[in-house]
């Protein structure tokens, strides 16, 4: 402020000098008799005037420039001062006190810092995790995905909201939503910031819901068995005494009981996949016997719907080692869907082929197909394609989820190729051992 005032005084002095010189010059001009005056007098007067004018202009220009530089410098300094100090404090305060657990790691995944929330999450004391490889404390159902984190960090790629488990100091595990991004420090080294949002509570609620579905479904099994067996007993003992109309009513009841039985099975299977309680029980399976039985089971429905069902067995492969129940669960869903969504007169083909360590089973139909933009959601729970919902109202949207999950437990995968109105081909790839 003080400097600016002095600058103004200097400017005012310069202006006064300029006016004084101008007045003096004008007086000098008027004093010169232009008729008699000689050249040196003219020159002297003009030079004096021009010189003073230039001096004032230069002085002003220099002064303005100086002032602008000073102003800009001051402003930048003030801005830098305000932003730098407060942002540093603000960010370190946010980092320290945030309810979200943060872990800063080096480019190789070694912990360099943990905030208070992270310390609580891991059940450690401050600095206890420093220098340790963070990836040794992270686990996930999708091992491949988790295994990619160090590589992603090195390449500077983001990880966003992955559901993983962290291992605490006490050995317990917590479900967290992991995000990871990398940044370069001022020495040019790559670092990573991990955020680990605790979702254990949400997982518990989710699990409680699944357990309830499991329990409820289980409780339904006993009355369903009682209904089925007593209905069967009724037919065995008195079948001959019913009129055709009476029989048709009873058959409807019997079919509905079977549908309920299958629904309960689906609900229980879904809960088993969600709770992760399904452990594959592998044994050698003779493919010829397995598929002959399988075909026999589905031929009834295929014939009912006037759909031809054809099996092309790979005769060069006799048996595989897998979980028979899970395999038939997957194939049952694929084949019964194929029959269900193929119009009268259509065909369903089951083809087998094998590689050195894999068996490929494809189920191809000439049915209604699946819209292209819906194919990526096909294996999600309770999803049904729009044309399926429209044309075949009866369905839970659990079949393909169960098929996909079963094949996953077997260590395989399912892929789909489909064109609306032409048909669909599901390809199951499973290990032979």
């Amino acid at each position, binding site marked *: 402020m003080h400097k600016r005032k002095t600058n103004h005084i200097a400017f005012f002095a310069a202006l006064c000098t300029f006016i004084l010189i101008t007045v003096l010059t004008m007086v000098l001009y008027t004093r010169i008799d232009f008729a008699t005056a000689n050249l040196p007098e003219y020159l002297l007067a003009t030079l004096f005037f021009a010189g003073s004018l230039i001096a004032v202009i230069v002085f002003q220009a220099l002064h303005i420039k100086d002032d602008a530089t000073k102003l800009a410098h001051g402003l930048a300094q003030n801005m830098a001062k305000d932003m730098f100090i407060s942002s540093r404090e603000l960010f370190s305060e946010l980092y320290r006190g945030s309810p979200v657990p943060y872990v800063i790691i080096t480019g190789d995944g070694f912990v360099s810092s943990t905030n208070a929330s992270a310390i609580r999450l891991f059940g450690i004391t401050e600095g206890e995790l420093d220098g340790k490889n963070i990836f040794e404390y992270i686990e996930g159902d999708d091992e491949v995905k988790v295994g990619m984190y160090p590589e992603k960090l090195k390449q500077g790629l983001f990880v966003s909201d992955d559901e993983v488990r962290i291992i605490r100091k006490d050995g317990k595990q917590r479900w967290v939503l992991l995000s990871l991004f990398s940044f370069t420090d001022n020495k040019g080294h790559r670092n990573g910031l991990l955020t680990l949002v605790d979702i254990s509570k949400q997982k518990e609620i989710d699990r409680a819901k699944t357990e309830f579905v499991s329990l409820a479904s*289980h409780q339904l*099994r*006993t*009355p*369903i*068995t*009682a209904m*089925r*067996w*007593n209905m*069967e*007993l009724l037919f*065995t*003992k008195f079948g001959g005494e019913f009129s055709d109309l009476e029989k048709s009513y009873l058959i409807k009841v019997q079919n509905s009981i079977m549908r309920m*039985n299958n629904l*309960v*099975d689906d609900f*229980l299977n879904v809960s088993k996949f969600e709770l992760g309680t399904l*452990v594959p*029980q592998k044994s050698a399976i003779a493919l010829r016997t397995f598929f002959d039985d399988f075909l026999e089971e589905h031929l009834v429905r295929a014939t009912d719907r006037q759909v031809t069902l054809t099996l092309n067995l790979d005769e060069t492969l006799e048996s595989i080692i897998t979980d028979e129940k899970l395999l038939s669960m997957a194939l049952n869903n694929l084949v019964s869907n194929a029959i269900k969504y193929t119009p009268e007169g259509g065909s369903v083909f089951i083809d087998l082929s094998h590689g050195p360590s894999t068996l490929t089973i494809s189920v191809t139909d000439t049915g209604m197909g699946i819209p292209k933009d819906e194919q990526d959601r096909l294996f999600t729970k309770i999803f049904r394609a729009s044309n399926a919902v429209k044309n075949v109202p009866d369905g839970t949207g659990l079949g393909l989820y169960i098929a996909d999950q079963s094949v996953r437990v077997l260590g395989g995968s399912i892929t789909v190729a489909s064109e609306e109105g032409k048909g669909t081909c599901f390809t199951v790839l499973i290990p032979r051992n």
Partner: protein
Amino acid sequence: MSIPSMEKKKVLVIDDEQDVREAVVSTLSYEGISVLSADRGDAGILLAEKERPDLILLDIAMPEKNGIQTLAEIKATDWGLETDVIMMTNLDDMEMMAQAIQNGSNEYVLKKDMSIQDLVKKVKAHLGEL
């Protein structure tokens, strides 16, 4: 309706669910097999000790004494060792199945997967009458 050769063979059904138990009893009787029944594990053991059935159909999820405990007690007796036991349950559970086999059951069947005629076939096979 009864088949003479079956008359000496006896089957005991132990299941707490009356509607299921009675359906099994009625069907097996109808097929000419002599059937006894009990609604609890303890009552079943007492009846088995007295009647010495050839085959026991044993439920698992029962109040008081469950099927696995009942099985263990049966198999701890001399007569029990010579009696076939089919675990007949709706518990589709690998661990339970392993326990049943460990305790000496001959077979583990799921009611949900069977028609009652399938059960009749199994019973006849165990009695050596098929």
